[in-house]
């Protein structure tokens, strides 16, 4: 393989060159990067490329198989869409960070060994933090720093896991691991932090809504999906993942119902969707892994689309809280339409993309529950069904309703810029295309697909589920029971480190600072008095000696006072006659000698 390039490098190096272009050439150049990357990618044959021997380690920088190809394709597609979306921002930091970040995700997906995987995994953190900080608000800086700390910790856990795993097995290959021994557990948890597992998740809901408008679209695509990829690669069929995924699918929907910031609502629903993928990987059958991967593919598109539509709203109105929005369909009809397509896709309406992928995971859970020893999968199925109804409720209805319909907040703004509309249009088209014609997507999946989403029972049952969820929303809203959006903050698991962090700071402040001050007082006191003493110690000792001599010699009163004053001044100012000076010095040394 001499004439192909590492996909990650095209994005990273290509990204660093962006600031050298100007005007229209810059826009064309940026759109060309993912296109060139894609052409490069489809010309690389399956297998391992870019092998490097690094003392004992065998590094594989480019491992191409069906699983890594699927993620590579969608990363290129979403990179192109997002680049079109951010063309009007004219922010080089965002451009370079975005490409660096996307390149890191590609590098991690194609890494054929754990070490190069780790390197790209860390680059992912750097790129994403830059996208958060590029917003330049105070809250973005703070949450970016928290994001960095959490991911730096996660990276260390992963690194420790890889090192332990290497010492245990002597292998760095990206192959299926079983949970045994500390190495594999640490790798598992390290990936889990990026995958936003419950309790490890608040970095996501904290930081994503704080990033730049385009940054959030980038972020929604890469970090969690790369973690999903890593789980599918390293831990397929690990039963713990089923229950982790079930928790992920269930708990965020409650938060999403009461959250005011609409981009944060989407962040919660992102965790909910990733939950479906994690369940699919945990079940570990061909159908469920296919379902997880297909759903990751679709989620990148419809979640990107939803974040783009909310970004357009934020861009035009400057507002993102549900309390400040409403009635925008009047001034942003296209954005509203695209948002509804994204909402229908994430809710898995028939003919939209979620329908053809989410149900694969559900089906795998249901058929698994009939096998011996897997009775508990019934619970998995029921919770996932609950989560399916819930996701329609908060992402499918709440997002479009509060932003574009509902109470008219009086914003009279322009429609989103053309490039944003084109980007949303492409994503919306793909959502409907995959939903109506899933065959091309199914052909890309890791295993051969024998699944037909469009059966009468599936269409009917899913439509029933969604329409009656909508009925519940409508009736609750009309009766006034539906919780009004409130300007408030909802504490989540990040309370643990945000408040205890502050408490620790206060404790340290209360204990260590007084201790410090106290020590300083002692040191200053001792040093000060010592200095005072030694300032004229020589003069005082000489006086002590001289006065006794003078008393014996018969000097008294005024005469004695004058003599004392003269001697004291002479010693301090060094104006003593040389002989006397020498005598005093010798006396002083002798005195010390005697004392010692």
């Amino acid at each position, binding site marked *: 393989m001499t004439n192909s390039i590492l996909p990650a490098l095209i994005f990273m190096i290509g990204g660093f060159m962006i600031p050298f272009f100007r005007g229209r050439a810059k826009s064309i150049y940026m759109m060309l990067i993912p296109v060139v990357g894609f052409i490069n990618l489809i010309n690389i044959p399956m297998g391992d490329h870019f092998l490097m021997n690094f003392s004992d380690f065998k590094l594989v920088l480019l491992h191409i198989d069906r699983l890594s190809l699927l993620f590579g394709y969608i990363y290129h597609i979403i990179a192109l869409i997002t680049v079109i979306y951010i063309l009007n921002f004219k922010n080089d930091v965002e451009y370079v960070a975005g490409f660096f970040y996307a390149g890191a995700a590609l590098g991690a997906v194609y890494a054929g060994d754990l070490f190069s995987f780790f390197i790209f995994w860390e680059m992912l953190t750097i790129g994403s933090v830059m996208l958060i900080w590029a917003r330049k608000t105070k809250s973005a800086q703070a949450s970016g720093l928290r994001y960095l700390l959490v991911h730096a910790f996660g990276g260390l856990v992963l690194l420790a896991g890889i090192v332990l795993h290497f010492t245990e097995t002597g292998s760095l290959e990206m192959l299926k691991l079983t949970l045994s021994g500390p190495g594999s557990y640490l790798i598992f948890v390290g990936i889990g932090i990026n995958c936003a597992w419950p309790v490890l998740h608040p970095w996501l809901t904290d930081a994503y809504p704080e990033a730049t408008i385009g940054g959030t679209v980038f972020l929604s695509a890469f970090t969690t999906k790369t973690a999903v990829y890593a789980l599918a690669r390293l831990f397929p069929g690990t039963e713990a993942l089923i229950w982790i995924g079930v928790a992920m699918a269930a708990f965020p929907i409650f938060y999403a119902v009461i959250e005011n910031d609409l981009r944060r609502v989407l962040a919660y629903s992102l965790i909910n969707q990733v939950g479906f993928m994690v369940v699919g990987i945990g079940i570990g059958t061909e159908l469920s892994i296919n379902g997880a991967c297909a759903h990751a593919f679709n989620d990148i598109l419809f979640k990107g689309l939803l974040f783009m539509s909310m970004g357009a709203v934020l861009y035009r109105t400057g507002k993102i809280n549900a309390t400040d929005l409403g009635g925008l369909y009047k001034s942003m009809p296209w954005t509203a339409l695209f948002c509804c397509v994204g909402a229908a896709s994430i809710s898995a309406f028939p003919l939209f993309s979620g329908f053809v992928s989410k149900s694969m995971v559900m089906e795998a859970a249901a058929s698994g529950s009939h096998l011996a020893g897997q009775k508990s999968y019934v619970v998995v199925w029921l919770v996932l069904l609950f989560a399916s109804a819930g996701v329609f409720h908060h992402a499918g209805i709440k997002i479009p309703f509060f932003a574009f319909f509902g109470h008219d907040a009086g914003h009279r703004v322009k429609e989103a810029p053309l490039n944003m509309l084109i980007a949303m249009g492409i994503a919306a088209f793909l959502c409907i295309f995959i939903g109506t014609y899933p065959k091309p997507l199914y052909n890309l999946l890791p295993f051969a697909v024998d699944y037909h989403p469009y059966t009468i029972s599936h269409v009917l049952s899913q439509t029933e589920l969604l329409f009656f*969820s909508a009925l519940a929303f409508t009736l609750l809203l009309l009766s006034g029971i539906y919780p009004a959006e409130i300007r408030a903050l909802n504490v989540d698991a990040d309370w643990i480190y945000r408040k205890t962090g502050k408490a620790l700071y206060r404790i340290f402040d209360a204990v260590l600072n007084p201790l410090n001050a106290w020590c300083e007082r002692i040191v200053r006191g001792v040093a000060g008095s010592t200095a005072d003493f030694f300032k004229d110690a020589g003069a005082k000792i000489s006086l002590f000696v001289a006065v006794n001599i003078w008393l014996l010699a018969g000097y008294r009163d005024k005469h004695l006072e004058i003599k004392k004053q003269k001697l004291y001044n002479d010693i301090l100012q060094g104006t003593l006659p040389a002989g006397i000076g020498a005598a005093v010095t010798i006396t002083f040394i002798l005195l010390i000698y005697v004392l010692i």
Partner: protein
Amino acid sequence: MEKKHVFDDPRNVKRLLTVFFSSVVILLILDAFYILLSRMNVIHSHMNYQWEEFWGFYAFFGFVACVILVLVSKYILRPLVKREENYYDK
């Protein structure tokens, strides 16, 4: 005078609601037909669980799930987690 939009007219909102409520009823009727036809083996029923064959199972589940979701969020979760917007800055 600002242009009148679709939902500025309350009659249109009413029309939309009417369409929606009737489609909900139609779905339940379709479900009954579907169960009938699959019992008579006219169409093949693909079901994993017994309860899926009950009339309106998914309708009931979807409705109840969302009511529970909203009530739990409003009356249990929100009182537990709601804080002032500057809670973390204090």
